[in-house]
């Protein structure tokens, strides 16, 4: 399987080429959780997760709400 380098929440990591946002969320065990994603500082709407696949060098951030003032 071809692998590509990406940055996920600040960590360099390798994922399968063609991996979609939906698949990544599944791999991270975050299915059904309230999260939001940006890739290269652009929002990826949740509705487009199944179609959105990553490219080499993408910088991905996945966030959720935590306690704060």
């Amino acid at each position, binding site marked *: 399987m071809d692998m590509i380098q990406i940055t996920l929440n600040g960590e360099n990591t390798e994922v399968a080429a063609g991996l979609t946002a939906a698949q990544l969320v599944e791999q991270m065990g975050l299915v059904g959780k*309230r999260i939001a994603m940006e890739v290269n500082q652009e929002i990826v709407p949740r509705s487009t997760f199944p179609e959105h696949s990553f490219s080499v060098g993408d910088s991905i951030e996945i966030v959720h709400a935590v306690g704060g*003032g």
Partner: protein
Amino acid sequence: MTQNDTPLEIAGKQYHSRLLVGTGKYKDMEQTRLALEASGAEIVTVAVRRSNIGQNPDEPNLLDIITPDKYTILPNTAGCYTADDAVRTCKLARELLDGHDLVKLEVLADEKNLFPDVRQTLKAAEVLVKDGFKVMVYTSDDLLIAKELEQIGCVSVMPLAAPIGSGLGVRNPYNIRFIIEELKCPVLVDAGVGTASDSAVAMELGCDGVLMNTAIAAAKNPVLMASAMKKAIEAGREAYLAGRMPRKRYASASSPVDGTFF
């Protein structure tokens, strides 16, 4: 809500509570939930942070406890030191909350006192308002900056009473008062109150509300302090509406001076 009062209106929505609370620093989710309930708050702040890989899947999610149908969720940009980071955070929050566009903007300048960087705050506010966000903005107690933030279109301006988490109370009531008098949008004191009397002081000045986190979460009994804060906010509001007696330098007897038999 206090009798003879009108509801607090922010971004077209009416609220009966003038106490806004944060969700940080609590012992656990259950304590957060109980404190929020005791506070009577309707607007509740949250922060936005990275979801860790391999995060405990059984760990309850904050938004499962503070549900958007029960509370108005106010995501903050805490921890941001640049306008760009604050704007990114707000966009992620909007996506996280299905298009909900009310945000608390704070752009910090200094780690020691957590004072706002008002230049970056102004910059971020302009971008966010243009992008359709309803911005409640944390700022210094500087009247000119507060006015500028209102002109940009922020829905609420929120000067600090004292540094975030300091619990020092309203350090400069005169500046807060200037801001209340000059602005048309709701002015909330955000940050710095330490105990119930501090909240009452802020409300007696004529603030439209108070936003706090540490004063409740860091109390020995946070749930009891949440209840105390609720009452202090209401008491301070009523006192403001009632209009306090003038201060005098000398005593004025409460009982009649005439008709004494001795």
